[in-house]
């Protein structure tokens, strides 16, 4: 199976993502939707080893769309701010990925691929801007970039 398919199956085991819709490479940005965006790494960054294995990188981005409130923050209501709540919910995706990485509970890319590390590139979701959807609801677009380093043994001649 290709890595994107494996990763989609894997990321769907994240509770925060599975509770909402997940789209691959296209999403129209409705509230509570997740958007899996593929990425590519420059092949010149691959690191070959003398035994024929090659360290490679797989990365992708999750965009999360959340509706926004427009209520001023008051000192008594900080903890109940809708926008802050939404951000904290998106944060749980980063926490889940980080935890799986620490537990070495990695996606299974096949027998000849050894995943070395899985990390999120930021410790908080990045706010990639806001827009208004077709229903006139203000929406925030948060992004999370996930990077997986793996050892590709498919070109090794030693078995």
């Amino acid at each position: 199976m290709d890595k994107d398919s494996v990763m989609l199956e894997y990321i769907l085991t994240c509770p925060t993502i599975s509770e909402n819709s997940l789209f691959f490479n296209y999403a129209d940005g409705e509230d509570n939707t997740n958007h899996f965006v593929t990425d590519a790494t420059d092949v010149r960054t691959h690191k070959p080893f003398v035994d024929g294995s090659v360290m490679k990188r797989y990365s992708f981005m999750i965009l999360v769309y959340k509706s926004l409130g427009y209520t001023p923050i008051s000192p008594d209501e900080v903890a109940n701010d809708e926008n802050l709540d939404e951000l904290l919910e998106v944060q749980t995706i980063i926490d889940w990925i980080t935890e799986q990485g620490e537990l070495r509970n990695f996606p299974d890319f096949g027998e000849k691929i050894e995943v070395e590390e899985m990390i999120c590139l930021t410790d908080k979701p990045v706010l990639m801007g806001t827009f208004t959807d077709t229903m006139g609801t203000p929406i925030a677009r948060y992004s999370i970039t996930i990077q997986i380093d793996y050892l590709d043994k498919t070109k090794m001649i030693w078995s």
Partner: protein
Amino acid sequence: MAVKQFNLAKGQRAERKLLITVAEWTEMSTPSGGGDPVSTQVREILGTRTEDSSIEYNSDISTTTDILGNNYTDLNRTQPEQAFDPFLILGGSKLGALLNDIRRRNALSELQQFTIYVITAFVGEAGAYECERHTDCTITYDSIGGDVNVNFPITVHFSNKITTGTVNKLSDDFEFTADV
């Protein structure tokens, strides 16, 4: 004996993975049901996670020049060595575990027990790749530590007790056949 040509297309460069160094040593174990210890040959390819490693021949050369300006060079000896840096502490590495055990016990004499195979997979064909077997080689550990991961770089010191031959396959269970 005729020199075998490279099994490469004209102008094709040999990939680094075609030059293979394999360590072999004897492991003693007691059968699960008891009884006399049995010896097993264990092998491991060297170079996992190493980006660059070469056999350095450390040639001892003396050169004299006559009054006409001609140079006469004597190659007295070679002391081949091959360093593997990084040699990371990796789960599943039997050689790493063995060397670390020797390091803990400071049992230096046990570092001299290795047979090293240098397989040149760019010479020969499937079922018979050219190989040199060096017996009584020494592997030394050079340091242990590092930054993020534990690095345990090693150096292979070849004995120059060489038997040339071929190996029948490129995996730990290869059979070495000496040249006649």
